């Protein structure tokens, strides 16, 4: 029992972000650092129902070449994106594909808000619109929300854990945090953690649209539609995406001479337990404080916060107030904050992993990505040091937070520290 409670340090040895504009994860980071948006106008639906909205979406991906037909025929795109993201992170971590038995000390925690929803939507369309009476026998395994975690586990022989977290916008951050705890507490040596989602089906888009929460835009303005902290912000931009972190105990990583990108030093979670949609400052403060406590980091140690910042009127202002309360007004005024959703959009159950990966790269490279399109600041969002206009050099940065605050009230904050200095 003593063995299972031992505390290990947890490091990031691989990471990936899949972005429609392509390139490797460093290219994605460079675009975020340059404030270059992946948002474009997305046309969806058919002659019966459809429309257009700013979104982040992939051109058709040749999954078959990379994953094989058998895998593609039995997976929803959210699982395929998960596999591509894991492949890249796994490679970066310089891991090899396991040849023999599944490793009981390795696992996967994956986040997704919507899982196989596109399989469901296609099925309903086949029934009610096309008049078909049968579904593929693959439908169950394609649609199930743990399909991505399952496929990752199979591909990499992760025999310890396979857990799927569906916690709306905080899914991937919570997946990463829970994976971190498995290693920290000595239960696992290596965890794949991240998230994937494709929230651009007609039903999903129309559901968000009905809440009046989608930022409007046309062909010319779509790229700048998501404007966190801006006085004219109009809401979020939905995004397809996937991102993955490979986490290991420090001993495990050192033993195999793995590249260490950063330490995941702490994880704080909380629940607003208040309102299903309106965020609660107190819940967010509890999550931030829990992450700092877990990481044993003082307020002054934090050199950057990647904000949840979805660009909703209420949410952005509440998050800034939460940061001010957690750090105190004096410290908060000097605390660099940015919301990178302005460029990569809101990938729902993947977004926490995208932002965690960007936070690791910001730390590692000593360069803070800005909140794009922030030419004017909403007075309700004042009180922190907004990184605006361009990336900010931060050569001495030691630690950073990534905030994820979900619909439903679940909050997750990840604390990363530099290991190279």
């Amino acid at each position, binding site marked *: 029992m003593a063995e299972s409670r031992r505390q290990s340090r947890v490091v990031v040895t691989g990471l990936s972000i899949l972005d429609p504009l392509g390139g490797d994860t460093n290219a994605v980071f460079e675009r975020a650092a340059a404030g270059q948006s992946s948002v474009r106008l997305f046309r969806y639906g058919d002659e019966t129902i459809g429309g257009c909205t700013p979104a982040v979406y992939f051109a058709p991906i040749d999954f078959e070449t990379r994953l094989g*037909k058998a895998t593609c*025929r*039995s997976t929803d795109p959210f699982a395929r994106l998960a596999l591509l993201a894991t492949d890249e992170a796994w490679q970066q971590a310089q891991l090899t594909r396991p040849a023999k038995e599944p490793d009981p000390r390795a696992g996967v925690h994956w986040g997704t808000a919507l899982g196989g929803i596109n399989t469901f939507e296609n099925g309903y369309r086949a029934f009610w619109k096309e008049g078909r009476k049968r579904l593929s026998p693959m439908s169950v395994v394609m649609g199930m929300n743990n399909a991505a975690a399952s496929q990752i586990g199979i591909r990499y022989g992760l025999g310890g854990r396979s857990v799927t977290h569906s916690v709306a916008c905080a899914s991937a951050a919570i997946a990463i945090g829970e994976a971190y705890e498995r290693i920290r507490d000595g239960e696992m040596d290596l965890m794949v953690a991240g998230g994937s989602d494709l929230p651009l089906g007609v039903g999903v888009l129309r559901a968000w649209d009905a809440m009046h929460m989608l930022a409007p835009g046309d062909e010319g303005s779509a790229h700048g539609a998501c404007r966190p902290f801006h006085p004219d912000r109009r809401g979020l931009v939905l995004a397809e995406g996937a991102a993955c972190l490979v986490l290991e105990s420090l001993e495990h990583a050192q033993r195999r001479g793995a590249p260490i990108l950063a330490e995941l030093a702490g994880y704080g979670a909380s629940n607003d337990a208040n309102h299903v949609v309106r965020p609660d400052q107190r819940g967010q403060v509890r999550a931030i404080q829990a992450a700092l406590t877990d990481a044993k980091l003082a307020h002054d140690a934090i050199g950057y916060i990647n904000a949840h910042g979805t660009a909703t009127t209420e949410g952005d202002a509440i998050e800034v107030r939460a940061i001010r309360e957690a750090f105190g007004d004096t410290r908060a005024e000097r605390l660099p904050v940015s919301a990178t959703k302005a460029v990569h959009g809101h990938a729902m159950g993947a977004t926490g992993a995208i932002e965690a990966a960007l936070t690791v790269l910001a730390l590692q490279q000593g360069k803070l990505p800005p909140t794009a399109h922030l030419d004017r600041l909403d007075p309700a969002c004042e009180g922190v040091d907004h990184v605006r206009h361009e990336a900010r050099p931060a050569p001495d940065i030691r630690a950073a937070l990534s905030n994820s605050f979900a619909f439903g009230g679940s909050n997750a904050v990840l604390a990363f520290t530099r290991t190279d200095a």
Partner: protein
Amino acid sequence: MQALELIRTGIAENTDINPAAVAPASRLDELGIDSFTLLELIFTLEERMEIELGSDVGTPETVQDLIDILQPHLPTDG
């Protein structure tokens, strides 16, 4: 189209198995077609032929077994 050709097309659609390697005597498990893949293969063939085999399929072990299942549903004029 002959049954074997239909099966080869279905296999090419659902797997990375080289259809040229598919002969009547081939064992499905040796080709790499497990029971799960077989379900999808049969579904593909049913859709293509606009038939429903239902539970009559049994447990085919070779490509010839599959041919025997499909044969009665093929047009007789060849």
